[in-house]
């Protein structure tokens, strides 16, 4: 699913590992989300949105998720 996680992370000068540590997930999970290989669960999506001070809807493009796969 298309998302803005990488943009938001780099805007805060965070590495994937640092973001992963904040969210209690592995660096590979953050990478998989950013490269749109993995769609996070609702709790993780909410945690991401909370961390970046935004909403899930503004981070993830649901329409792209529906059209892919």
């Amino acid at each position, binding site marked *: 699913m298309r998302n803005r996680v990488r943009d938001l992370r780099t805007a805060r000068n965070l590495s994937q590992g640092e973001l992963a540590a904040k969210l209690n997930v*592995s660096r590979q999970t953050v990478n998989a989300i950013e490269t749109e290989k*993995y769609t996070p669960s609702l*709790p993780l999506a909410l945690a991401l949105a909370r961390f970046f001070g935004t909403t899930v809807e503004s981070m993830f493009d649901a329409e792209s998720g529906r059209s892919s796969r």
Partner: protein
Amino acid sequence: MSNNNNQVAAFMYGPGAAFVLAVVIFAVALLGHVPIGLALLMAGVMAAYGVVLIAGRRWEFIGVLAAPGQDERAFNLHQRAAAAAGQVMAAVIVGGFMWDVLKGNVDHSQWPWLGALFGVTYLLALLVFVRRG
């Protein structure tokens, strides 16, 4: 820090289980009067698996093997791999049963028991998961 500790604890669970199993295998083999060399080999294979889990933790594949519960994606990968392995096992059980029937070995066949165990486990698990939502 505690997050780091949790991840280390989650990771050590896999290798730790492998080392404990190596000791158990060795003890069972000795109790079963298996030759000591073979018992050491059996335990050594399991211990080597534990070492691989530790040495290869930077590789995601090994990381998921060592700690499938480390995060939701690892758990998701683990579940999909387990489901794939289960599908293969189901096919092997049915195929093995058919093979034994063809050879006329039904009386001594272990496949029906394995198939029944597989089926009942699946049905019970499905029942529990349906109820939990």
